[in-house]
């Protein structure tokens, strides 16, 4: 049992735990926090996978920005306890089980996938910076266009928020 493995299992457990909490929590705010937990543990896993930059973005943007937005909205609407109605029988009796079934199927196939067996190169402090430069190269040369497109996307998001969330005049 080496340190990375222990870390992996720890984070994995935390992530799954978070996900389960997200489901079980009746207070939206709790769910939100559970989700933050998931994201945090994922960030650690990214580090394990030797993608520190991604991990950073994960923390800053995701946990930092997006989740804050969530929490903010929850507070704004002071969304109370979730009422567990079950008008949709099909969701209760079919949807949830099938969800788990899907989980199972994908998990099994991913476990036995050929690439699954390849071993990730451990975290080398040396190639980190290079990693990031490479990354930026990729981003601005190879994937420049999507990158530019995302700017429009953001614009759209802003517009949408403006249109929808404003008070009725």
């Amino acid at each position, binding site marked *: 049992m080496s340190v990375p493995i222990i870390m992996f299992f720890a984070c994995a457990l935390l992530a799954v735990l978070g996900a389960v909490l997200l489901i079980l929590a009746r207070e939206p705010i709790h769910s939100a926090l559970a989700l933050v937990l998931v994201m945090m543990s994922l960030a650690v896993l990214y580090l394990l996978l030797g993608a520190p930059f991604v991990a950073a973005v994960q923390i800053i943007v995701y946990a930092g920005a997006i989740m804050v937005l969530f929490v903010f909205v929850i507070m704004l609407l002071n969304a109370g306890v979730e009422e567990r109605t079950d008008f949709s029988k099909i969701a209760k009796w079919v949807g949830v089980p099938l969800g788990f079934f899907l989980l199972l199927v994908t998990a099994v196939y991913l476990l036995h996938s050929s690439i699954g067996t390849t071993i990730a190169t451990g975290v080398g402090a040396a190639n980190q910076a290079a990693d990031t430069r490479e990354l930026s190269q990729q981003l601005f040369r190879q994937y420049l266009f*999507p990158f530019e497109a995302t700017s429009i996307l953001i614009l759209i998001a802003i517009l949408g928020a403006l249109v929808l969330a404003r008070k009725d005049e």
Partner: protein
Amino acid sequence: MMAALIALHSEQLMNLHRLAPEVVLCFFGILIMAVDPFIRASGKRVLGWMALIGALTALASVHILVHYPGTAYSNLIRVDSFSVFVHVIILVAAVLAILGSLDYLDREGIQRGEYYALVLFAVAGMGILAGANELVTAFIGLEMSSISSYVLVGFRRRALASNEASMKYFLLGSFATAFFLYGIAMVYGVTGTTRIDAVQSALEQIVAGQGRLPALAILGLALIFVGLGFKVVVAPFQVYAPDVYEGAPTPVTALLASAPKAATFALMLRIFYIAFGSAGNLWFWAIWVSAVLTMFIGNLAALVQTNVKRMLAYSSIAHAGYILVAFAAFSEAGAAAVLFYLAAYVLMKVGAFLVVAHAGQQGEKRLAIQDYAGLGSKQPLLAACFSLFLLSLLGLPATGGFLGKFFAFQAALEGRDRWLVLLVVIAAINSVIGAYYYLRVIVVMYFQAGSKDYTPSPVAPAVAVALFIAAAGTLYLGILPAPILNFAKAAAASLSLR
């Protein structure tokens, strides 16, 4: 560093002309946003005209694409007659939708700049979708169109239906997107690339090597189908469509029911025909099953609708089914048939919804089929146009709809698989079922007298123009389809499927 970036850009700018329509659209979108603050509430209509000009310019700029076939942005974007064809369809739909919106927004008191900007951005997204040669790029385009449509659907904020539709569309839409994305991840995992042509060759190698497709690839295929199937509204992912189409502002419905479908089908063609060409025998069945379900669900459920808008929503589901029939042929002819069908479909569907948009009157109150009683005598021309669109949707000869079906069935019957024959027969039977509810509207319009006290408002010029274009186009496609058909064939050929 900065300099490097600029250099990079200038080098990349060379590619922009291969994105001419998108660039134009985004430019106008931003322009509208920039101008918006300086125009007082009463004059917002101008922005609509600007948007129209934008769309038309984009349509014109498609010409540039024609002259610069090839790939752009390190092969993320592919410009070929296929994407040109789809661009044209989308932009025509956009133009018609905008024409239909001008007065609608006035009527509903929601004449705002954002609306048009969002429309343009959405269309730009679809444009990207049409030209995308790379899955993540496609994903971005998809999101551009989706997110702006979420907003557009909810644009009549005060109407409960509108914001409910917006919510449903948003939640389910992003749900489906997640599947799509996961699918992409799988593909990436298997092939190590997300470029469609690269995926194609990679998969072919694998198949050549191990004799069959790896499970992950198939898993990815299935998940991608979920994501795209949702966008093109095929069973069992069609559930959201009726609610959303009914709740959305009708011109938006018009756009939503037509353009994204076209764009997404284009992407689907690229992914299934090219990238997963080696898995044809697999996805064929997915398409087959889905097509049967889609047609039956769409038509049978439409039979019992009492609300024209919702009825048309179901009918658009059914039509997705017919398109799948052509899709299942998995041949150049099939692709051509899909494209031709889309062309015809866009015209008649947008036309039909624009009629509904007008006939709905203030607050979209008159949507029940019975409200159309006597329209034939009150507004003969409008009724005539509507009948034309309905008959075309029904598939009556001398209309685009008929030839769409015709080529679709033809392609399917020429296809490799014997089960296609059964599929075509099912489709045929379905189109008879469909006949019933389309004709019912005509019955009400012409054979039943309307209430004396109600006189509909006259058709606004802009709408009239839009309807005229749609009607003329429908007839043109029905009587002299040769040019468009050849165009579609060329487009299909440019897919160069092996």
